[in-house]
């Protein structure tokens, strides 16, 4: 298993990304991912059954472990959470895709034997459509789509989102309202286009 990367490295990468260096994000992503993965696994192996793993708690712990606390800046923390939100989104979408893939698609209704997915609760289709809609939203309005990502996939509250995006909390609320209404419309098929 890979070693936890040095704190200063992550802290530096976060600073670079904040300054607009996109390739820093490419480097950060796997580092953060691995740490989340490692923590989650360790956590689950210790906890009693039935105890749920809190995503936000997990991200917090990863943050404390990965980021050099002496040189911490609020913006670093926000950016760390923003990456985590991306990671969580991707995990969920990948999972939903796998699930959808395991299911049989069109034309197979008459068929009685079907390959069953191992893990189900079937919102995967909806989640995938949400993801697609969110991508379309990002094309028209990147900021609103980010608000959704941070809140829905990252579990950030409005104050934290405001910090990440350098906007006021009021704007976060307004962005959320608009984005959510539009996504609802897309998903329920009462599309505006």
């Amino acid at each position, binding site marked *: 298993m890979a070693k936890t990367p040095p704190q200063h490295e992550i802290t530096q990468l976060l600073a670079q990304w904040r300054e607009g260096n996109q390739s820093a994000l490419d480097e950060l992503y796997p580092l953060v991912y691995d740490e989340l993965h490692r923590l989650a696994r360790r956590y689950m192996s210790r906890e009693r059954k039935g105890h749920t793993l809190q995503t936000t708690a997990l991200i917090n712990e990863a943050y404390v472990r990965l980021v050099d606390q002496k040189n911490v800046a609020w913006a670093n923390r926000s950016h760390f959470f923003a990456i985590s939100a991306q990671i969580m989104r991707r995990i969920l979408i990948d999972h939903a895709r796998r699930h959808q893939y395991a299911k049989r698609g069109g034309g197979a209704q008459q068929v*009685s*034997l079907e390959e069953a997915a191992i893990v189900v609760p079937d919102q995967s289709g909806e989640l995938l459509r949400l993801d697609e809609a969110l991508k379309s939203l990002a094309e028209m309005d990147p900021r609103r789509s980010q608000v959704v990502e941070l809140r829905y996939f990252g579990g950030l509250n409005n104050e934290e989102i405001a910090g990440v995006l350098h906007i006021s909390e009021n704007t976060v609320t307004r962005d959320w309202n608009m984005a959510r*209404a539009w996504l609802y419309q897309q998903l329920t098929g009462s599309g505006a286009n």
Partner: protein
Amino acid sequence: MTPERWQQISRIFKSAILLDNEARAAYVESQCGRDDSLRVEVEKLIDSHGKADADEFMNGVAAEAAAPLLTNDEVRRQEILNKGQRFGSYIILDSLGSGGMGEVYLARDTRLDRTVALKVLSPDITEDKRRMQRFRQEAKVASSLNQSNILTVFEFGEVDGLTFLATEYIDGETLRDHLHGKRLRLGEMLDISMQVLAALDAAHEARIVHRDIKPENVMLRRHDQVVKVLDFGLAKVTENRYPTLEHDSDPEAITEFRTAPGVIMGTINYMSPEQAQAKEIDERTDIWSTGVIMYEMVTGKQPFRGSTTSHTIVQILEKDPVPLTKLVEAPAELERIVMKAIAKKPGERYQTAKDMLTDLRRLKKRLEMDAELDQTASLVVPAKKDLRRQKKQVAVVVAIEIAVALAAIFGVTLWKSSHKTTSPLVTTPEAPAERTLTYWITVQKFKNNNPYQDPFTLAGEINFEANYHIRVNVRSPQSGYLYILNEGPASGSPEYNVVFPTSTANNGASLVPAGETVLIPKTSWLRFDKQQGVEKLWLVFSEDVLTELEPIKKFAGIETGGLITDPALNKSIKDLLDRNSATKPAVEKGDSLTTLKAGGKLLIYPIKLEHH
């Protein structure tokens, strides 16, 4: 919708939702003026806003569901693409592992409906010009070659900023994995060598030198042991057939060997002396490398291997390897061929792959004849060995060699116990045609869509519960062509679904090797639907390929559930399966499995899965 339009809507929307109903209508009216479509859009959005609130739409945090998934090993970030994901016209079926250049996936080409290996370059490599060049080179060179022992390249391209190479998919292992430090049987070793040389012959004809022939780049297909030469990434197109004076124009490959000894230790052992000295390289370099591989296959040892890169290079340049026959019992002719291939001076080696191939073919033929002679003789004259040896002028043929050849040809374990194998071999009399197939069923109980309890196996069918997910395991002591179709309980003309072969189950091939267990499905379970009744799972197992069933392959696939939509094909399947009523196989229910036996070359049997 244009971003401008979107901004316009959003501006009206954000103020409107703060107002009560009456004021809102007036506000929207005033803002939209005569732009009716704008008004409609704004109103729709306001309406959606209210409904989203009422539905508590996205009130939760999806992230909370993500954390438990993180504990799942299946989720690995190293994979650029995921199972089921669409990638251009491909659908990713599985991850096959990672190589130096990126990830390799099993994928389905939806345009041509074929299974391919998809090599996707990691994004960081795309940045690296030299490696990109190599990748492009590989695509270009390999796609220009069309020979059955060279991996076929289908496509080189880019999707979503990811560069990929689609090639023929080989279900098998590399010669490196196959060798695993052991020696190979003589017959197998000759087969592999000859196929490598056939590939090289084709490449050399096209004036392409591979330059990196090594066991890692030789792939053996599992079901028929066909050899495929891979990785033309370092290949070079020669201007002249035999360049003599000009210096190698591409010292980069050599620099790579030189500068990163630790990384490429595996490769350096197969380098020719001229390669090691960064001299000019031609086809005879590939001959050398093939000779080195052959030496390794025969003896289990590499002829040139030092403790460091420089030691190895010194050995390559100066050391004469230990003769094969000093290490193992091998035909002297084989030793001559290998030693000629690894002559230090290119001029003393085989000059073409074709010449070397010819010698190997001749050797193989002779060994086969010897084996036959030996066999015939053993039935007639007890003292056959002496007689035969006198007949042979060539002194190299000794009894042991024959034993080795026999063992190789008949698949007996050899080398170590070569003396034992001199006992006469008798041909197995032609057995009357019969097909045998066994099956058993694995059950996994599910509760709330999650598996619980350990899976258990059944010898055959029972009346299944709705929450039982099952897997059918099929095996035969004979190799043969297997087709499995599902027929539902529907009344009227039956419809069939392809259950086997599928791209994931057997690489799309119907031919199943003897003794191999086929899991259906391979990685998940069959689940019953709500409609009660009897599901038939038709097993069709044939000695010969069934041309009437081969077309079912193109309907296989999870996307469509394998449903066969061609009425003509459905009809011919039904006709074939109906023949079963005439020739029902004998069914023996054992403790742990069910055995089916049918006379003739064809076995057809429906497993009946009843569920409630």
